[in-house]
């Protein structure tokens, strides 16, 4: 029987020791996702990406490289786009996580989602959710970005189909309010 034992004062911390060896680091029990507390029970060293996808079935964020270079795993943390493959769930605390699943509903798409459809800003679609999250963060901060500002803000997101011209158009369209 593993004996739950905790030597720090961290709330929710459970270090499991068996035969004198640490088997698990403190588990994380809750994350603030899309405006609600999500109950989880995850090793704090697991990546945010893995917990979102495998435990919470929020699969819009994708694995692409694991080193934060491709941006396919982009979610917003307190409004800032971050690479969820490079964040452990233990590092999130009570920061607000926003994923594509919280952006719009199937009945009522977010204006950026609509703009991506209208501008045909996708091919295989694997990078699309992350592109949309990066664009949403940009437009909240800079509602009328120039082409250069769009390129600078989105440059960390790779689209291997290279639908970049149409993704830029989609962001411009959303900024113009052209997509309803």
């Amino acid at each position, binding site marked *: 029987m593993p004996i739950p034992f905790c030597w720090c004062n961290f709330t929710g911390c459970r270090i499991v020791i068996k035969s004198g060896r640490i088997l698990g680091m403190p588990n994380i029990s809750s994350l603030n996702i899309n405006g609600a507390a999500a109950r989880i029970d995850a090793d704090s060293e697991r990546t945010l990406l893995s917990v979102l996808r495998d435990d919470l079935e929020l699969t819009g964020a994708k694995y692409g490289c694991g080193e934060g270079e491709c941006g396919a795993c982009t979610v917003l943390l307190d409004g800032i786009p971050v690479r969820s493959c490079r964040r452990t769930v233990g590092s999130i605390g009570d920061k607000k996580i926003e994923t594509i699943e919280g952006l719009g509903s199937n009945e009522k798409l977010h204006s950026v989602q609509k703009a991506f459809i209208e501008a045909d800003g996708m091919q295989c679609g694997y990078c699309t959710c992350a592109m949309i999250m990066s664009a949403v963060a940009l437009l909240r901060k800079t509602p009328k970005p120039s082409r250069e500002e769009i390129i600078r803000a989105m440059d960390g997101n790779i689209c291997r189909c290279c639908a970049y011209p149409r993704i*830029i158009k989609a962001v411009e369209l959303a900024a113009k309010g052209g997509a309803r």
Partner: protein
Amino acid sequence: MNYKPGMEPERYELDAPLPYRFSFARRSFFKSVGAGIVVLGLLDKAVGQESGRRGAGRRATPQDIGAYLHIGEDGQVTVYTGKVEVGQNVRTSLAQAVAEELRAPLTSIRMVLADTQLVPYDAGTFGSRSTPDMARTLRRVAAAGRELLIDLAAEHWKADRASIKVKDGKVVDEKAGQNIEFGKLTKGQKLTKAIPENPSTSAPAGHSAPKLDSDKIVTGRHKYTSDVKLPGMLHGKVLRPTALKATLVSTDTAGVEGATVVRDGNFVGVAAANELLAGRALKAIKAEWKTADQISHKDLYAHLKKNARESQSGGRGNQRTGSVKDGLTAADVRNAQTYNIAYIAHAPLEPRAAVAQWEGDKLTVWTGTQRPFGVRGELASAFRIPENDVRVIVPDTGSGYGGKHSGEAAIEAARLARGAGKPVKLVWTREEEFAWAYFRPAGVIEISSGARKDGTLTAWECHNYNSGGSSLRTLYAVPNQVSEFHSTDSPLRQGSYRALAATANTFARETHMDELAHTLKLDPLEFRLKNLNDVRLRAVLEAAAKGFGWGKKAKANQGFGIAGGSEKGSYVATCAEVAIEGGKVKVLRAVTAFECGAVVNPEHLKNQIEGSVVMGLGGALFEAIEFQNGQITNGRFSDYRVPRFSDTPQVETVLVDRKDLSSAGAGETPIIAIAPAVGNAIFAASGKRLRSLPLQFGRA
């Protein structure tokens, strides 16, 4: 494991279809669908010969069925085809073909793609064959379905067939003022129809229909292989050798905790409750590998040349006409140059992935592949079970570009699942995808040529070592020519890549043509047109030049380049504008004219062209696999640069719509002209002639 190291030039050309096909899919299909109409989509003889090199004049047999159409009693129209969606919008374009012929709304068509238990055999999604073959078949299928609906309605109403037509998803008799839904005509029967000899089909309407499922994509609901989750599923990881061709000497798995270790011959893998535990378990394995010295990328081109074999006569792309010797004697100017092409990676954003589940001896695998039936065969052979016991389902896939013809992840996930006794998901890491998939072949291309002062080509001799025969022959009219492909020893595993060797061969040819034009002091476009009888290539060159404003004067440190080519029945020309800024090349603008016969969906076509051009910039300017002693040394996105937003020039497309010609595929060919257009523009801007891909301006 069905790994095939070494030479896989244009793999699909070598993979002739098996002479037999089991009728399992067909039988299970008929059991699975309810009453209504089933139309069998027979591949016609001409198409059969083109795609599968089958014997001429053979009668249609079950293996020639390319697709099914089912119209249920609820009116649901469902299409079953083995094609896969990898971002080329095949789901939409094939649904458009059916909707147009069936006179039904696009959104009423349900597409079932690439489930080996439900769809008829298909060799795979490659070679730009979906539009010329499958769309054509589906048009005929849908037309036959439409005519059958009219027959049934005439009988139902006891009315004159001539006054009945299908319109807006219903069968109508306008004279009598009555209409009936598709599903109400079969009255509990299951009617089967094969396509008649000459069904009357129409040309594509050429409308820009929106992408099907785009609402699911933008909301994150669209499920790719890596999103599939089964009850009790574990996460797998595979122990990789420390170098290519390394052999396993010993392993010690005593330190592994919280995971199942699966060992089988030289295969070692783990399965655990989550990725973190699987990763830790993998790290805890101590393994010893034996490696041998291997050549590095620095010695690549000499190695390819040194190990070249004599070209076989009649090989792909090979040609001999006239006497090159005489042609060179008759020439006023001569040019002989060598062009080197690096290995590049497909790097699909979704790496290889699979979810495998065993139920007794029956295996189901979800995996992203361009060859679902091929992977079914690989699985059957790896586990020594009948193909009938293997079901491969291909969810829409996070791209492929020719890089997902093989089933490694499927086999590995299945082996882990069998060992763990639970379903297993395996998603290759980016590093694994770079090191253990396969590459676009590297190559050495030698061209020698001669031309008269007036710009008439007299001789052309071209030898391609390793990269392949696609688009090897020159499209220009030269009385004396030799074109030969030579196989050699490839140090890395290689295979198909979008447009195959047409990118390499078009780069070499169009760079060489540019060199000749400058030697002759002729305008590069004028020189090309002077030697061109091919009206379709001429048309795209002229269209690109017009759209670009060819002939205008470039600013200081800027230059313009043009290039054109043809592959897989379509034609492309690109004009590029580059600037040299601070010793670096910046592509400012690219105008591409493209002709693929009758346009099916103009917006999606433009999207494919734009994407191809920007993707092609990677291979043109910076992509090259580096390797040493069996290790890929730049196998991650932080080391291997692919095109990003900041690399994207102003991209313009000109569609040359030939409604009089049948539609060719368009996902590949638009990539072939950008590299030589950029290289030629660099020469115009700087006077530096670059003859290797990638074009490395700084290092030249």
